């Protein structure tokens, strides 16, 4: 039973308390359940669009949990619901965004779902063209360095997006100036319908780091504690002035690309089912159960709490007011 003991203490070795890993688990579940609700709302015609985090909540929450949202910054991409929740947005914030209400903290109803951003939460506003946020995060890290501040910037993107010029230019700039930024690639094996092997010919996106003079790390995204560990290492390096790290979390997108997609034409149900069995949330649940931290009762109470919260949030957002049509004309420039 020695092995087991070792296994059970992995989070403690990482300096995580039982409460913290439970909190991580709750955040992952929250992301998943919010996401599932979004699909329900979409399929019942209440919101026109969903882009999903399902399958990627584990690495997202683990990565964000390694940061300090009161100090650090995130430039997430459209799937990063887990990151956004870990950085302090509530399900209500998220549903206000989905419903494009005036109170949406991300864009006041202006942007599509999944386009996060709020200064209060230390989340940079994101756009749709992929990878543009990568140089932005580098610029944020440059600000940290120039001002002698110790915050670290996290930026995420898909593996397909790592083929954009902006990925290259951003990474290279950060490498040359040794900036405190973490490039977090969520490799879910598809860019919409295009499979990994038609996107890149290298073994790992992380292999690209060598070309920018900093470490590249591949991590099993379904092993959230390992994700947390490599993030912690990267953050330490960043804060110590040792520069950027490129982390590639191997993960999987369990849903179609978005509510407008139909993934059956480009991948098999078997493949998706197989990925579901390795889902980070399920793996982490088992870990927590084996560690004796997560009892069935606890699980139920967490879920009940989340359902309640999500119901409340949905209802609130559904009944919240729209921005006025004329507000279209506001905020083109400073007043």
């Amino acid at each position: 039973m020695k092995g087991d003991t070792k296994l059970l203490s992995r989070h403690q070795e990482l300096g995580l308390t039982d409460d913290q890993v439970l909190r991580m688990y709750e955040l992952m579940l929250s992301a998943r359940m919010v996401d599932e609700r979004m699909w329900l709302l979409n399929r019942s015609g209440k919101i026109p669009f969903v882009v999903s985090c399902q399958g990627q909540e584990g690495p997202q929450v683990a990565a964000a949990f390694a940061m300090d949202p009161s100090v650090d910054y995130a430039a997430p991409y459209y799937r990063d619901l887990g990151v956004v929740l870990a950085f302090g947005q509530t399900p209500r914030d998220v549903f206000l965004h989905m419903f494009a209400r005036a109170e949406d903290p991300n864009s006041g109803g202006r942007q599509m779902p999944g386009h996060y951003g709020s200064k209060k939460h230390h989340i940079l506003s994101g756009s749709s063209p992929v990878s543009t946020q990568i140089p932005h995060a580098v610029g944020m890290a440059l600000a940290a360095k120039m001002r002698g501040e110790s915050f670290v910037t996290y930026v995420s993107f898909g593996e397909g997006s790592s083929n954009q010029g902006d990925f290259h230019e951003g990474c290279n700039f950060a490498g040359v100036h040794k900036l405190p930024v973490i490039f977090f690639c969520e490799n879910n094996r598809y860019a919409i319908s295009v499979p990994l092997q038609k996107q890149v010919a290298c073994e790992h996106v992380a292999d690209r780091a060598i070309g920018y003079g900093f470490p590249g790390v591949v991590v099993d995204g379904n092993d959230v504690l390992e994700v947390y560990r490599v993030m912690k290492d990267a953050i330490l390096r960043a804060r110590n002035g040792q520069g950027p790290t490129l982390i590639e979390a191997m993960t999987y997108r369990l849903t179609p690309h978005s509510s407008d997609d139909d993934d059956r034409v480009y991948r098999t149900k078997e493949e998706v089912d197989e990925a579901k069995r390795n889902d980070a949330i399920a793996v982490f649940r088992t870990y927590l159960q084996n560690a004796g931290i997560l009892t069935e009762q606890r699980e139920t109470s967490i879920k009940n709490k989340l359902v309640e919260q999500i119901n409340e949030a949905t209802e609130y957002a559904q009944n919240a007011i729209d921005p006025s049509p004329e507000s279209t004309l506001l905020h083109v420039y400073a007043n």
Partner: protein
Amino acid sequence: MTVKLYIDAIRDAMVQEMRSDPSVFVLGEDIGLRGGVFRVTQGMIEEFGEQRVMDTPLAESGIVGVAIGAAAMGLKPIAEIQFVDFILPAVNQIISEAAKMRYRSNDDWTCPMVIRAPFGGGVHGALYHSQSLEAMFYHIPGLKVVIPSTAADAKGLLTAAIRDPDPVLFFEHKGMYRSIRDDVPDGEHVVPIGQAAVRRVGTDITVITYGLMVHYAMQAADELEKEGISTHILDLRSILPLDKQAIVDSAKKTGKVLVVHEDNKTGGVGGEISAIIAEEALFDLDAPIVRLGGPDVPAMAFNASMERFYMLNPAKIADSMRALAAF
């Protein structure tokens, strides 16, 4: 002749040209098995294989740059940009390279390629899936910019674009893919690039427009007809080259001109059209030249009521037409 959807007419043109010319191929994101996010290329990979219907990595500058190189060697690439909003990373390749290849090499190297992209709003696409970006390109000699408003034109103009020895940007209003259908010639069908079409003959006011707005203007004209106002409608079909003669003629016809585009007003194509008229038909005018475009804000919002506020529609166009007729 067969009644076809706009989207099917576009596919028709590609398929026919690919059957008859082995140098034609399509490349872009998700155009293979997925058939494109709008399904424009649906079924094509099955017929032509994955080399001629090529899924590319997610990198627009690369897509266009590679297409330019292939075109230089005599292939005829049709590059699909998934949304016109995502053409921006490729602007350097389009303007510095594709548009200038023939000119800079003194007619030695050429760039016979087509770039297709869906544009336009009203589909809950928000800031980055709703834009009209034609104004970026109608100023660039060396390019052609085509925006068809009917299924028949979509087929005929795309065929012409594929056969064109120079680079052609082909912008398709995404709201029209499945809402517009009309009679499309079955076999070969070529509509020459650069000729505007009179869509409605009238005597009181002239509306000059293109794309989806042609249809909105037609609806508005029906409305106004009931009120006794007769509208002349010119569909530009291409904004580079502009059919100057047709613009001037249609302006002279009624002496009252409304220029309409979905794109925001300041700096839009409407300015050029208005300026042409002000330069060449000023004394035939009975009223100021009016432009109607989107508001000068960065782009359309996701929120439905804000989107409606931004988008033109037949009612808004009719209002402008009425005011002009009454002038």
